[in-house]
C-alpha cells in the first residue's frame, strides 16, 4: 500500500513533517510559515543537561511544540499516540496506512540506518513521516533528506522505541482536518505565532532563555575561560556552533528561517515595517555565523588569548541587542 504523498525537503525535521502532513491534507503552507506560526524561534542554555560532555544549547523551541501549536492555531485537531508495546505500535501504524493516512513518527537517530554515521548520536527527537508499506519495508519521507527512503519493520520499530532522554515510546501523530482552513485562520495563526515568540524571547522569566539567555552565555564564556580553561571552553563553543549550524537549522541558528517567515507573513499582514524587521533577523543570522567562525578559531586552537574570548562575549552581546531591538519593533506593530 502506498499513499500518494508528496515529499518536500526542508531544513528542519519537525517543520518538514508538519508542512508535508498538512499539505497532504490540502493546505498549502511553507516551512517558514509553519515555523513562525508555531513560534519556533528561541534561545536556551541548559547547564544541567549535558550532551557529549558539554552543556546543551538550543536555538529553537522544545521538540513537538511547533507541530502542536501550528495545528491548534489553525484549528486542526491532532491525533497523538504513545505505546508500551512494539507490536501494538506497529498495528496502529499499519491501520493508519490502510486508511490512507500518512503518519508522523518521533524516532531516535542512533539506529537510523540511512543517516551518515557521523550524525548518529543518541538523539531521540527526530521526526519523519511513514507514508506506505511494501512487503516488509516501510516507505519513509524524512524531511531533511532530498528523497524518500525506506526502512525494514525491524529498523523502524527499533528507532521508534529508542531509549534514553526524550525516548519516543513509539509516538505517532497526524492532523485531522474536519473543515477547510480559511485564510483568516492562517492570518490569525501567524499573528498568534508572532505574539508568543515575542513573549518567549523577551519576557520569559529566568536568566537562561530568550534574549537574556544569549547575554547569560556571553558572560559565561569568560567565566568558563577563567575557571575551566581554554580547551573545555573550546569544547563548549563547538557545541554552541553545532546546535546553531547543524542540519536542521537552515543556517544561522534558525534566524534565517524566521526572517523568511516575516517576509512571507508580509503577504498576510500588510505592514511594511515587517520587511525591515525581517532584514534585522537576517543580520542577526549573519552575526551568529560570524561568531561561529570566531568560535572555530578558538576550538581549533588558533585563537587562545583571553582577548579572543572577550571578542566572543562582545559578539553575543551585540547579537542579543540586535534581536532584542527587532523583537521590540515587532511588538510595536499592531497585529
Amino acid at each position, binding site marked *: 500500500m502506498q499513499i500518494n504523498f508528496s515529499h518536500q525537503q526542508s531544513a528542519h525535521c519537525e517543520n518538514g513533517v508538519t508542512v508535508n502532513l498538512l499539505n497532504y491534507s490540502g493546505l498549502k503552507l511553507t516551512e517558514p510559515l509553519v515555523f513562525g506560526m508555531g513560534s519556533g524561534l528561541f534561545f536556551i542554555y541548559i547547564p544541567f543537561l549535558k550532551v557529549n560532555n558539554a552543556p546543551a544549547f538550543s536555538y529553537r523551541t522544545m521538540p513537538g511544540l511547533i507541530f502542536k501549536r501550528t495545528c491548534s492555531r489553525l484549528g486542526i485537531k491532532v491525533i497523538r499516540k504513545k505505546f508500551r508495546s512494539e507490536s501494538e505500535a506497529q498495528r496502529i501504524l499499519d491501520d493508519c496506512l490502510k486508511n490512507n493516512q500518512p503518519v508522523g513518527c518521533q524516532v531516535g537517530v542512533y539506529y537510523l540506518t540511512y543517516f551518515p554515521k557521523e550524525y548518529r548520536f543518541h538523539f531521540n527527537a527526530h521526526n519523519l513521516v511513514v507514508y506506505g508499506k511494501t512487503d516488509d519495508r516501510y516507505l519513509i519521507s524524512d524531511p531533511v533528506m532530498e528523497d524518500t527512503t525506506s526502512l525494514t519493520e525491524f529498523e523502524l520499530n527499533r528507532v521508534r522505541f529508542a531509549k534514553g532522554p526524550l525516548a519516543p515510546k513509539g509516538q505517532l501523530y497526524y492532523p485531522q482536518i474536519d473543515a477547510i482552513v480559511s485564510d483568516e485562520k492562517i492570518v490569525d495563526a501567524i499573528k498568534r505565532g508572532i505574539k508568543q515568540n515575542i513573549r518567549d524571547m523577551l519576557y520569559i522569566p529566568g536568566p537562561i532563555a530568550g534574549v537574556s539567555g544569549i547575554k547569560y552565555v556571553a558572560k559565561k564564556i569568560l567565566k568558563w575561560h577563567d575557571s575551566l580553561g581554554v580547551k573545555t571552553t573550546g569544547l563548549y563553543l563547538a557545541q554552541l556552533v553545532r546546535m546553531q549550524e547543524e542540519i536542521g537549522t537552515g543556517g544561522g541558528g534558525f534566524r534565517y528561517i524566521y526572517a523568511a517567515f516575516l517576509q512571507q507573513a508580509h503577504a498576510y499582514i500588510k505592514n511594511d515595517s515587517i520587511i525591515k524587521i525581517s532584514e534585522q533577523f537576517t543580520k542577526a543570522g549573519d552575526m551568529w555565523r560570524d561568531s561561529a567562525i570566531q568560535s572555530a578559531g578558538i*576550538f581549533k586552537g588558533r585563537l587562545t588569548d583571553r582577548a579572543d574570548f572577550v571578542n566572543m562575549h562582545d559578539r553575543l552581546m551585540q547579537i542579543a541587542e540586535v534581536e532584542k531591538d527587532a523583537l521590540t519593533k515587532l511588538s510595536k506593530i499592531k497585529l
Partner: protein
Amino acid sequence: MNKKDIPQDHSALVSYIKELCYAVGEDGQYTTANSTGWDVKTNALNLAWQDIEQRIITAYRQVKNHEVSPILYYMELRLMDISILSAYTGFWKWTIKRHLKPAVFARLDNKALSKYALVFEITIEDLKTEKFNADKF
C-alpha cells in the same frame, strides 16, 4: 546571508544529504538552496568525535589495567552513558555501576551478560574475553 555565499565545503554529509539552507536571493527575497557543508561546523563535529575517541581509548586502557570491566569500553564505543545503557538493558543505574567493577563483572551469569551483549550488538565471548584488537589505537 546571500544565496551566492552559501558555503559548499566538503563534509561527511556529501554522499548522503545536501542539506537545505535559507538565504537571500538577488531580488532580496528569501529562497532555499542545498549546501554540501561548511568547514566551520565540520570542525565542530570533528571535535566532538575526537572527544568521543579519546573517551574510548581511555576506557580501553582502563579495561586493560583491570580498573574497570569491559562494559565501560563498549558503553563508550556505542556512545552511551550509564543512563542510556540503563534504559536499554533494563538494569538500574547503580547495578550497572556495580557491574563496572571487574570483580563483580567476573561473577556475572550468562543471562546478565547476554543482555549487555544484545545492546552492544556483540557476542558474549566478545564481552568476556576483552578480545579487542590491541593494535587498534
